[in-house]
């Protein structure tokens, strides 16, 4: 009986055909721990799956590896889906892994943690890199979907709080494959064309898959690179995305994002009123001071050169009285308050009050005169006193020599 003689390649081919005919080996899910994980320059991943007793060689081709959401690491417990077949050249069987997920927790969760760790180590979340938002956002760029509640909420709140702003909406998709590139692109575009003073980006809440675009590395890097401050406003508490960590300011929701971007006009109005009140008070004090000085001076310099002094002051006070009255009327018209005390304090400065203290004004030719040289003997003059006037003829002029 003659033994059949086989070539090596025939044996391997025979075994391979047996393996390949087995429906179980054609598609199975294997649980194990990763070891000897290597990524070759070709992009293929080679590793071993093992448990307490055994190990199984595995390969994941570049096309499959590109779909991984997380970075596999030695020691990690994973589930691998694939087929087991023989590599005829080596006569070794291995698992051709088509997809891999972390065992126990979701792969997105692992990817999130890994990216967070990586970007944290790179300094993308550093507080020192974060810029303050402008106090008055003249131009706001909203980067989100033009449909959906997020943009609606943002615009509603911006309009209510700070309607002076000019808003540009840059519509992007916020979920799906295209979303990260679109969001990152819009952020870069806004920077390139200096479209805004602040960027508000985000979307409404959802599952971790829905929010995934905001956990994308491209989006995170675009936010980090943005010269325009970025507010990340994704989902509802307690979702925290990678974008939230990188952004200059993190908002809990789209509405909250708009609140953080825009000053509240109610507060701005309070500030305006406070400024008005401060000016009123300062002006009141200032006028009181003037009055006190005038009173103090009345007894001194006035006696040396009463007409000069009095006339100057009279004109100034008339002028101020007029302007203050006008201002008071305007303010009262404008339903504002508290001007009356100001006018009252001015009243104390009124020329009539000064006349009451015994001074007088002299008129010649219908004009008040402030110098003895303005009248000549024979001129008719009028002397105005607090309760009336005297008409008189000048009989003599005596000029006084003084330094004032």
């Amino acid at each position, binding site marked *: 009986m003659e033994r059949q003689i086989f070539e090596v390649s025939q044996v391997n081919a025979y075994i391979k055909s047996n393996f390949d005919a087995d429906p179980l080996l054609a598609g199975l899910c294997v649980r194990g721990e990763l070891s000897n994980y290597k990524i070759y320059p070709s992009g293929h991943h080679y590793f071993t799956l093992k448990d307490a007793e055994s190990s199984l060689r595995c390969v994941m081709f570049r096309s499959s590896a590109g779909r991984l959401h997380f970075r596999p690491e030695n020691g990690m417990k994973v589930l691998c889906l694939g087929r087991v077949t023989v590599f005829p050249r080596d006569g070794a069987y291995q698992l051709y892994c088509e997809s891999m997920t972390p065992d126990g927790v979701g792969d997105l969760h692992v990817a999130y943690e890994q990216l967070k760790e990586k970007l944290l180590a790179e300094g993308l979340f550093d507080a020192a890199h974060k810029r303050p938002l402008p*106090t*008055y*956002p*003249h*131009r706001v*760029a909203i980067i989100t979907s*033009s*449909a959906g509640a997020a*943009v*609606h909420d943002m*615009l509603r709140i*911006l*309009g209510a709080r*700070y*309607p*002076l*702003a*000019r*808003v*540009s*909406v*840059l*519509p992007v998709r916020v979920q799906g494959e295209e979303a990260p590139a679109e969001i990152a692109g819009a952020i870069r*575009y806004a920077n390139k*064309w200096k*479209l805004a003073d602040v960027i508000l980006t985000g979307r409404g809440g959802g599952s971790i898959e829905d929010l995934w675009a905001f956990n994308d590395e491209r989006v995170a890097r675009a936010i980090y690179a943005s010269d325009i401050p970025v507010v990340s406003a994704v989902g509802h508490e307690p979702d925290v995305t990678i974008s939230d960590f990188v952004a200059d300011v993190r908002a809990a929701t789209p509405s909250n994002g708009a609140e953080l971007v825009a000053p509240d*006009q109610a507060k*701005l*109005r309070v*500030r*305006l*009123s406070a*400024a*008005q009140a*401060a*000016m009123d008070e*300062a*002006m009141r*004090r*200032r*006028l009181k*001071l*003037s009055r006190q000085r005038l009173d103090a001076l009345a007894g001194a310099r006035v006696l040396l050169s009463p007409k000069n002094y009095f006339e100057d002051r009279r004109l*100034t006070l008339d002028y*101020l009285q007029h*302007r*203050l009255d006008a*201002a008071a009327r*305007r*303010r009262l018209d*404008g339903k504002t308050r508290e001007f009356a005390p100001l006018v009252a304090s001015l009243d104390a400065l009124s020329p009539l009050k000064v006349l009451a203290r015994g001074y007088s004004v002299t008129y010649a030719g219908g004009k008040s005169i402030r110098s003895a040289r303005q009248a000549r003997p024979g001129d008719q003059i009028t002397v105005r006193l607090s309760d009336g006037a005297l008409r008189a003829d000048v009989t003599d002029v005596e000029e006084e020599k003084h330094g004032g």
Partner: protein
Amino acid sequence: MAGKSETFEASVKRLEEIVKKLEGGELPLDEAMALYEEGTKLVKSSAKLLDEAELKVVKLAKGPDGAPTETEFTENG
């Protein structure tokens, strides 16, 4: 191009200066009055800006030459 927000910010800044100067005291009365009137006008004009403002919203997209082009923004659009 100074928009309403820019005007508002400039007014508030000037107003703060005026308040500071007036509160500092020692200004000639004339100057104090002039500042007071200027400040009061600014308070009024700034409040008016807020009263009359309506949020301006446009949609921005990359035009054929790469430059941003504005169109009317409509939700769900």
